[in-house]
C-alpha cells in the first residue's frame, strides 16, 4: 500500500469510530444525524482507499456517488422522523424515548 492509501485508510477508520461514538454519546436526537453523517464520511474514505489501492478510480467513484445518495436519503428520513418525534413527544431528549426496552 502506498503512503496515501495508508493515510486515507487510517483517517477513515478513525472518523468511522468517532461517528459511532457520537451516535451513542449524546442524548439530543439531532446530534444523531451528525453521528450518522460522520460515520458516512469515514466509510467514504475507506472506500476511496480501496479503490486507490486497486487503481480503479472510475469504479470507486461510481460507488461513492451511489453511497452519497444513500447517505443523503438516510439523513433526510432521519431528520423527518426526528421532526415528527418532537411533535409527538414535545422533546428531543433521547431519554424520553426509553419506554420500550429491547
Amino acid at each position, binding site marked *: 500500500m502506498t503512503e496515501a492509501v495508508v493515510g486515507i485508510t487510517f483517517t477513515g477508520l478513525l472518523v468511522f469510530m468517532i461517528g*459511532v461514538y457520537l*451516535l451513542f454519546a449524546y442524548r439530543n436526537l439531532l446530534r444523531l444525524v451528525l453521528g450518522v453523517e460522520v460515520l458516512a464520511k469515514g466509510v467514504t474514505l475507506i*472506500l476511496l482507499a480501496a479503490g486507490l489501492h486497486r487503481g*480503479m478510480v472510475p469504479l470507486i467513484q461510481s460507488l461513492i456517488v451511489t453511497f452519497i445518495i444513500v447517505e443523503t436519503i*438516510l439523513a433526510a428520513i432521519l431528520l423527518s*422522523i426526528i421532526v415528527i*418525534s418532537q411533535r409527538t*413527544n414535545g422533546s428531543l431528549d433521547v431519554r424520553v*424515548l426509553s419506554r420500550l426496552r*429491547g
Partner: protein
Amino acid sequence: MLATLVSCLALLPAARVTTVWQAMGTHFAVDGLSLLFLVVVNVVGLCCAVYSIDYIGHYGGRAKFYSLLLLLVMGLNGVVLVRDIFSLYLFLEVASVAAYVLVAYNLEFDGIEASLKYLLLSVVATGMVLIGIALILMTTGTLDFAELKVALAGGAGANPVFMLAAGLFVAGFGLKAAVVPFHAWLPDAHPSAPAPISAMLSGVVIKVAGIYAIVRLFYGVYTAPAQVLRVLLLLGLISMIVGAVIAYFQTDFKRLLAYSSISQIGYILIGLGIGNWFGVVGALFHVLNHAIFKSLLFLNSGAVQYRTGTRDIREMGGLENRMRVTGVTSTFGTLSIAGVPPFGGFFSKLFIILGAVVAKQWTVAFLAVFFSIFTLGYFLYLQRRVFFGKLNEKWSELKEAPAAMSIAVVALAATTLLVGVFFDSVLRGLIEPAARVLLGGN
C-alpha cells in the same frame, strides 16, 4: 378504487415469479436460491397488500402506504436478484428506507421510537458491511459474486483479511437478521408497526436482509469455511434459546410473536451452521415455512387488535366464539410453528434435527427438540388465552375481521397446510434447487 388498483400492482411482482426463470439482462439473474426467496417475498407481500385494503383505512395516507409497501417489495426482490455485493447493499438500503418509514407509519410514540432505534442500529450495521466490502475490493479488486468465488478459491482465501471481512459481514447482516447479541431493535420495531408491516418484517425482511445475505456470501462466495459455520451454529443456538425463553414471559401478543421470530431465526442458523445436506435443506425449508406461518400469526394478531383495540393477551379469552376465521387460522399457524406433523413447520424442523443427528451434534439435536416442545408449550398457552376458553364478556359484541383481512389469512393458512401435505413436491421444486446452488452438485 385506488386500493384495488394498487393491489393489482402488487400482483405484478408476484406474477413475474412464475414466468421469468432465466437471467434478465446482465445485471440481474435468477438461480434456485434467488427463486426460493423471490417466492417467499412475493407470496407474503401479496397477502399483506390484500390484508391492508381494509386494515390501513384508519391510518390514512393509503396511496403513500401502498407505494412504500411496493418499494419495500421491490428492494427485497432487488436484493435476491443482484449478482454483486455492492448492489446487494444498495437494494438492502432501499428496502430498509421503506421499512423505517412503515414502522413509524402510525405516527405514534411506540412506532417512532422503534423506527429511530431500527434506523440507528442499521446504520452502524451497514457501515460495517461497507467496510467489509471495501476490504474485499482492496484484496481482490472485484465485487461480483462469481469472480469473488474464483478469486477466493485461487489462493486469496487464505488471506486473514477475508476472515476480518467475514466477521464484519456476520455482525452487519446478523443485526439485520436480529440474531441474539444484535437483536435489540426487533422486539420494539415488529410490535409497533402496523400488522401487515410486522408480517412483512418478521416474515420476509429479516430473512432476505439477514439470512439470504449470509447464505449468499458464506455459502456462495466463501464456500462455507468451518470457522464461520461454527460461529453461525453458536449464534443460532443462543438465538433459539434466548428468544424462546423471553417469549415465554411476554403478555403482549405481538411482542411474543417478535421474540419467537428471533428463536425461529435461531433454528435457521442452526441448520446452516450444521452445513450438511439435511441441515441446509431444513434451514431453507424453514425460511419458507417461517415466512408463511409467522406472517399469518402477525396478521391474525392485527385482526384481533383491529377489533378489540388491545394487544394484551390477559384481557382476551374465548375470541374464537366471535372471530371464527381468525381463531381457526391461528390454530393452523400455531401448530405449524410448533412443528406438529401435517403442517410445514414439522418437516423443516425434522430436517434440521436430522442434520444435527447426521453430523453427530447430539447436544444441538437435543436442544432443538427440547425448544421445539417449549415453543409448542408457549404457543398453546397463547392460543388458550386468546381464542379458546370462556368468552370474556367484554367482547360479547365482537365481530369477525373485515373480508379482505380474512381472505389474506385464509390464503396463508391454506398455504401452510398445503406446504406440509405436499412437502415432497415443494422440496423437489423449490428447496433442493436452492440447496444445490449452495452445496454444489449432489
